C-alpha cells in the first residue's frame, strides 16, 4: 500500500529545504589552525586546562587512530574526508569558560533563543519563576522550589562549537547531589569519576570515529547521579555547530549510581552551508544496580540542500552499559537531520535482569543517507530488550536499519522483541533492513517481526474491543511509548517531534 496523503504532507513539512535552523551567528571566534597533529591535541588539552593523564589518554588514542581505517560497511556513500582540512577547536572569543549566564555573549544567547532553547526563559516557561522575579541562574541563594515544582523543568547545558557556554540549574542540581557540568570541567573537578568511567563503555580504541573523538573531543556533558537519587529534573544538552570548517567532537558521560534515575535529552542544529561538516561524538552511559537512564535525542543537524550539497556528517558512537543488576537503559531518537547518519545507540546488558530499549523514528529526505540502528548484547541472566524502529524515506534518500541482537551462552532466559518498519514516499528513495540475530543460548527467545499484530495482543485487544480499528490501535500503542519520552522534550522540540509521531503507519513495509 502506498503512503497516505497525510503522511506525505507531514514529511514534506520537514523536508530539507524547510530547514529552519540554517542561520549563522556572527561572533568573534577563537579558532585553532586547521589540521590534526599532536600539537593540536596539546592545544585542546591546554585550552581545557586538563591534567597530564587526560592529555596522555588523548595522545594514546591519536596514535591508535593513525593506524585505523575508516569503516566502509555501512550503506552510506561520501567522498573521502580530509581530516587535515578541519578546525578541531573553535570557541567564542568573549569568554574562557562561563561562570554565569551574564558572562555569555548575548549573541549566543540570542542564537539559542532562535533555536527555541531560551536559557534564561527556561525557568519562566516551566512556570517556577515569574518574569519579574530574579532568575535562579543569577542568584546563588535561589528560592527553594515549590512542592512538585521540579517536575517540568529542564536543566540545559549548551555547547557552542567546542565549548559549553552555559549550564542552567547547576546550583539546584548540586543540592540533590547530582553533578551536571561540561565534561571539561568534570575532568578538573571530579577526576576520580572521569578516570574511572571514561572509556569504560566505548574504549578509546573502539572504532575509527570513536578513537578520533577520544583524541580531540572538546566538550560535552558529564552527569553523575548518586546512589538512590532520582534526578529532580530533565537534563539536556544542546549542541550547535556554528563556525565554518569545524568539526564538533563532543563526549558525553552519564553515570547513574545504584538505585538512581536520570532522564537526559540532547538536541543538535547547524547553519546552512555548502560544505560538509564533521560531527563525531561519543556517548557513554553507565547504569549500576537498579539504576535507570533514559536518553533521548532530537537530531536535527543541517541535512544539506535538496541536491545533496552541504550538510553534517554525523558519525556517532553511543553505547550504554547496564552494568548492575535490574538496571535499565532506554534510547529514544528522532532523527531528521544530517547528510549522513551513522549511529547505533547500543546496550550491553551485563547485569542480571537488566533491560535495554531502543525506540527510533528516522526520517530521511532530499539526498540524506541514514544508516542507523542498535545493538542489544545480552550477557546477563534474564535480560530483556525491545527494539522499535520506524524509518521513513522520501526524496532521493536512503534509510537503513542495521541492528544486532545477541544472546551469549550465559544469558539464560534472554528475551528480545524487535520490530522495524519502513515506509517509502515516492519512487526515488530506498528503505533497507539489515538485522543480525545471534542466539547462542537455547533458553533465549528472540522475535524479529515485521507484522504489526505482534506488539502486544492484550493491548491491541483492549483497544479494538473499545471500537478502535486495528491499525489505529497499533499506531496508538507504538506512539504510546515514544510519546512517553517525547512529551518531556522542551516545547519547541516537542512540536516538531509531534509532527513525526502523527505519521500514519499505513503502508509500512517490514
Amino acid at each position: 500500500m502506498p503512503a497516505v496523503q497525510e503522511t506525505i504532507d507531514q514529511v514534506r513539512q520537514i523536508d530539507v529545504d524547510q530547514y529552519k535552523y540554517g542561520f549563522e551567528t556572527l561572533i568573534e571566534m577563537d579558532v585553532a589552525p586547521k589540521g590534526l597533529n599532536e600539537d593540536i591535541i596539546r592545544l585542546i588539552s591546554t585550552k581545557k586546562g586538563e591534567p597530564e593523564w587526560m592529555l596522555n589518554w588523548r595522545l594514546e588514542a591519536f596514535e591508535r587512530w593513525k593506524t585505523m581505517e575508516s569503516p566502509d560497511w555501512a550503506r552510506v556513500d561520501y567522498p573521502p574526508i580530509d581530516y587535515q582540512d578541519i578546525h578541531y577547536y573553535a570557541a567564542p572569543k568573549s569568554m574562557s569558560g562561563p561562570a554565569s549566564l551574564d558572562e555569555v555573549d548575548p549573541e549566543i544567547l540570542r542564537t539559542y533563543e532562535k533555536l527555541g532553547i531560551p536559557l534564561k526563559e527556561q525557568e519562566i516557561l516551566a512556570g517556577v519563576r515569574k518574569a519579574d522575579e530574579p532568575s535562579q541562574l543569577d542568584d546563588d541563594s535561589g528560592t527553594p522550589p515549590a512542592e512538585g515544582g521540579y517536575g517540568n523543568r529542564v536543566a540545559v547545558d549548551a555547547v557552542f562549537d567546542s565549548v559549553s557556554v552555559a549550564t542552567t540549574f547547576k546550583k539546584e542540581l548540586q543540592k540533590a547531589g547530582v553533578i551536571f557540568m561540561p565534561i571539561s570541567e568534570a575532568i578538573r573537578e571530579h577526576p576520580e569519576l572521569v578516570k574511572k568511567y571514561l572509556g569504560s563503555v566505548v574504549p578509546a580504541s573502539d572504532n575509527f570515529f570513536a578513537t578520533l573523538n577520544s583524541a580531540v573531543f572538546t566538550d560535552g556533558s558529564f552527569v553523575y547521579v548518586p546512589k538512590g537519587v532520582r534526578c529532580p529534573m530533565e537534563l539536556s544538552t544542546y549542541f550547535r555547530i556554528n563556525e565554518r570548517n569545524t568539526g564538533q567532537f563532543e563526549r558525553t558521560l552519564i553515570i547513574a549510581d545504584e538505585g538512581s534515575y536520570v532522564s537526559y535529552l540532547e538536541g543538535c542544529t547547524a547553519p546552512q552551508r555548502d560544505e560538509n561538516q564533521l560531527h563525531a561524538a561519543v556517548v557513554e552511559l553507565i547504569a549500576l544496580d537498579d539504576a535507570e537512564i533514559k536518553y533521548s535525542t532530537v537530531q536535527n543537524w543541517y541535512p544539506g540542500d535538496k541536491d545533496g550539497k552541504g550538510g553534517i556528517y554525523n558519525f556517532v558512537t553511543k553505547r550504554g552499559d547496564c552494568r548492575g543488576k535490574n538496571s535499565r537503559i532506554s534510547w529514544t531518537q528522532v532523527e531528521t537531520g544530517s547528510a549522513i547518519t551513522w549511529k547505533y545507540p547500543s546496550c550491553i546488558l551485563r547485569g542480571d535482569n537488566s533491560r535495554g530499549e531502543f525506540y527510533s523514528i528516522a526520517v530521511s529526505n532530499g539526498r540524506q543517507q541514514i544508516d542507523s540502528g542498535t545493538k542489544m548484547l545480552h550477557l546477563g541472566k534474564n535480560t530483556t530488550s525491545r527494539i522499535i524502529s520506524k524509518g521513513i524515506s522520501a526524496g532521493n534518500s536512503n534509510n537503513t536499519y542495521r541492528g544486532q541482537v545477541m544472546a551469549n551462552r550465559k544469558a539464560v532466559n534472554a528475551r528480545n522483541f524487535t520490530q522495524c518498519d519502513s515506509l517509502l514516499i515516492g519512487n526515488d528513495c530506498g528503505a533497507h533492513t539489515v538485522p543480525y540475530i545471534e542466539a547462542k543460548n537455547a533458553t533465549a527467545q528472540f522475535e524479529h517481526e515485521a507484522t504489526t499484530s505482534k506488539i502486544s495482543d492484550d493491548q491491541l485487544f483492549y483497544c479494538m474491543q473499545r471500537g478502535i480499528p486495528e491499525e489505529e490501535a497499533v499506531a496508538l500503542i507504538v506512539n504510546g511509548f515514544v510519546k512517553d519520552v517525547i512529551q518531556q522534550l522542551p516545547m519547541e522540540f516537542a512540536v516538531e517531534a509531534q509532527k513525526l509521531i502523527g505519521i500514519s503507519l499505513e503502508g509500512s513495509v517490514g
Partner: protein
Amino acid sequence: MSVTELRPRTPAETALVNLAEAAGADEDARRSAIEALRREGLPHRRVEAWHYTDLRALMGRRLGKDQAIEAIAAKEAGSTESVLAPLVAGSTVVDLDRSEAASAPTGVSISASDDLADWHETPNHLDRPVDTIRVVNAAFGARIAKIAVAEGTEFASPIEMRSGIGAQSHAGCSVEVGNGAKATFVERIEGGGSPAPSSGVSYLTVGDGAEVLWIIDQAKDSGAAHLGQLNVTVGADATFKLFLLNSGGGLVRYEIHAVTAGEGSEIRLRGVNLLENDQHLDVTTTLRHTYPNTTATETFRNVVTGGHGVFQGMIKVAREAQKTDAKMACNTLLLSQDGDFSAKPELEIFADDVQCGHGATAGEINADHLFYLMSRGIPAPQAKALLVKAFVDEVVEELETEDAIAEALVAKIDAWLERSH
C-alpha cells in the same frame, strides 16, 4: 577496500590453491580461477557476505595443519562409490561427475558438456569482487552438464542429479526449462569425507509459464565440506519452488540466488536445516525482484541440537518492481546449549508500493505446548519429538507437492530426528 591487497596466504589457502593446481590447470578458465583464488584468498568474517561463515578460519581447521596435499588427494582418490537409491522411486538419474550422457525421458535432453565452469558468469549476487563458490568450482575444473526440457513438456518423475557420491567432486550443470513446461529436479549431495571442499554450481532458467520444483538433498558425511550454489532465473508467470534439506556435512554453505525475468512470477523457497554435533551449516539466499507483480515466500526452519547454523536472506526490490509481495521467515528451535544460530534477514527496497516482510525467531520448545501434550499422558521425550516433527513437517506441507516427494522428504527428516534424539 583492503580485500584486493596482497597479503600473506594462510596455510589453508595455500593448500587449496596447490590442490587445485595438482588436479590439473592446463585450461585458461581454470588457470584464471586459480589465480583469482590465489589473489583473493578465502573470505573471512569481515567480508559481509561471509560474516558468519569465516571460511578462512574454518578451512584452516581442516587444511591448516601439516597435512600433506598428497595425503588429501590420496584420500579422495581412495574413496569407493556406494550404491544409492534415488530419493523418489522412478527418477531419471544423471551422474554429473561422469561425462557420458544418460537416457532421458521424452522431451528432455541431457548432454554432458566439456565446457568448463566460468567463474565470471553474471550476475554476481553477493556484490563481491569474486564469487568464492564459483571460483573454487572453476579452479577445480568443474564441467557443465546441460539439461534441456522442451517447451510444454510435462513429466511426473523427477530428474535426479548426483555429484560427489563417494568422492570429492566439483560439478556444474545448466538447466533450461522451456516455456510452459513442468519438471522436478532433485540435487543429491552425498558422501565424501575429504578435508577439502567439494562444490557444485547450477544454473536454472525457468521459461515463461513453466513450473519447476527443485529439491536439494544435502546429506554428506559428517567430516565433509561442501560449497553449493544455485542461480535461478524465473520467467513471466512462471513458478519456481525449491526445497532445501540439510541433514549432513561438517562444513556446508549453500547459496540460492533467484532473479525474476518477467511479470507475475512466483518464487517459493522452503528449507529445513538439521544441525548436530559440531556441524557448520550456512544457507544464504538472495531474491531479486526486477519486474512488477511478482511474489516470493521464503520459509526456513532450523532444528539445532549442536553446531553452528547460519541463515542469511536478502530480498531486493528494484524501483520498477511495484506490487512486489515478498515474505521471508526463519524460525529456529534451539534444543541444546551446545548449538547456536545466527540469522540475517535483509530487505533492500526501492519501490514504494510493495509488501515485504521478514520475521525471525529463535528459542526453545514452547513450554505451553509441551505441557498440553504431557497433560494428555504423552511422556516428555515423545511430546518433544512430536513438536519438533510438527515444526519441520509443516514446511514440507507448504510446498504443496506430490505425495511421493513429500513422503520421501518427511522420511529423510524422520530418520534424522530418530537418530539425534
